[in-house]
């Protein structure tokens, strides 16, 4: 069973979202998502300063199985990306909620339609049956 921390929000596309004290949000992919993909070989990150709409492609995570888009869970601008992933994409596999974070966004509008941990747990359970 994959790890789904109770204090994070999630999307139906398997991103996780954490709102920081300064109002910025950190985005990554869930433990379930990294397990489905297998070991990552490449992560394509956006440029800092890029403005994205909620639901638009934000980053790409690539394993030997597949390359998958990571979607922006909120509209906003990119304020930081996890540069460590350029040399070590496998950080996402080892620590999806910690050192394997992807992008920090400054939201331009409040997030809508996110799932809490319980709802996301249910989504993952539904998908594996």
């Amino acid at each position, binding site marked *: 069973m994959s790890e789904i921390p109770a204090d994070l929000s999630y999307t139906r596309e398997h991103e996780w979202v954490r709102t920081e004290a300064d109002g910025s949000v950190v985005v990554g992919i869930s433990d379930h998502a990294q397990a*489905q993909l297998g070991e990552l070989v490449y992560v394509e990150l956006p440029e800092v300063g890029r403005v994205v709409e909620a639901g638009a492609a934000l980053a790409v995570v690539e394993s*030997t199985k597949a390359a998958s888009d990571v979607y922006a869970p909120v509209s906003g601008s990119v304020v930081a990306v996890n540069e460590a992933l350029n040399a070590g994409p496998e950080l996402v596999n080892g620590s999806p909620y910690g050192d394997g974070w992807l992008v920090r966004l400054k939201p331009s509008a409040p997030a809508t339609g996110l799932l809490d941990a319980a709802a996301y747990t249910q989504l993952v359970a539904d998908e*594996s049956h």
Partner: protein
Amino acid sequence: MREPLIFEQSRAGRGALLQAPTPVPPSPDLPASLLRSDVPPLPEVSELQVVRHFTRLSQQNFSIDTHFYPLGSCTMKYNPRACNRLAMLPGFLARHPLEPEAHAQGVLECLFELQEWLKAVTGMAGVSLTPMAGAQGEFAGVAMIDAYHRARGDHARRQIIVPDAAHGTNPATATMCGLDVVEIPTNAEGDVDLDALRAAVGPATAGIMLTNPSTLGVFERRITEIAAIVHEAGGLLYYDGANMNAILGQVLPGAMGFDVVHINLHKTFSTPHGGGGPGAGIVAVNQRLEPFLPVPMVGQRDGRYAWLTERERPQSIGRLSAFMGNTGILLRAWVYMRLLGAEGMRRVSAYAVLNANYLLARLRDAGFTVAYPGRRASHEFIISLKDVARDTGVTAMDFAKALLDRGVHAPTTYFPLLVPECLLIEPTETEAQDDLDRFVEALVEIRALARRDAAEVKRAPRTTPVGRLDDVRAAKQLDVTWQSRRAPAA
């Protein structure tokens, strides 16, 4: 046993008369700074060492000549020997692309006939043979759609609609042509979601790119409705011919409502797709797009065959290569169509679809999960090993590796992305029932082993020249060159 590289077999001073270099005087046209002073580190081996090395390498091939290859026309269907032999006749091979038309009437006649036959199998009004690969064919198709709208002064049409079950290259092609991609979903039955399509079309719609049958291995049943929706909105329909093997001679893309078709001759028409090229991604269009076809094409002038260029076809999107496409591949297709005839081509698709449905039925009866159980297969179908993976930890990739030990090349794994832990299976028209049965038995045996001893499946393959490759390391540390450890000769 690992076969050493030919470089590793090298011993200084060894050689064969056949390989002895002929002394060549230095060319006076080359400046001294560009001439090499040291000898290149080529392998120094005997003639028989060379013969044995390359014979042993060829024996390690897992090939269509020796094994069942359920990757199908997508990669490697059986291509009759005759097509290759006839396309290699000296009269074809010794041609020069700039020879005068008067000396090339024979080959021009072949290419003209090929254009006519391809019109017949696509239901279209015009064909250009010049695209040299599928990517060029796709590019030409979308570039013609774009040129059509521009010629009408309709500059707002900048969007290409791509269903998520379309061929993976389609969004890349639209982007390459400077258009925006709008993705629409597939419903649970594997058909395009018509409500999503209706919502997506409008005055910005340049067209839609569809593969039919789709990458899900099912025929798009409401294709005429899709065509009507797109045409009413002012867009055009592009047919990706990736799955032509399923419909050859049975149904025409033109009759489905498509405006432009690209076909990879190197999938269905007797050139291996997985060979690394060269290829031929011909395009066929209806009247509407006919003026925009890429040049050169073959036409008739004063009772003789002639190249049609920008002069005769001023609205053409232009040239995709220096000459006329990959003639060798076009000739193989000409021979293939000539050998089979219209009836034979219908049998190709009939048997391709029959074999796929036979395998589908047998695997379903054996308890495998079929991705679209309510649907008949086209020339290929998908099974999902999600349940086995969940219960035993043995994945689709493990099945693929274990198949190698049972004398079967792995089918496509993990594609399409919409289906988890999937195998995309395409047996093609040329497999005997016995071989199809052996494939089913192999999958059943691997599943039984997975339940009994999952670790044993994960040790596969054991019988191949190399075992399980580290594909993560291969992706991260790609290094395909061999560096001589020998110091260059002074």
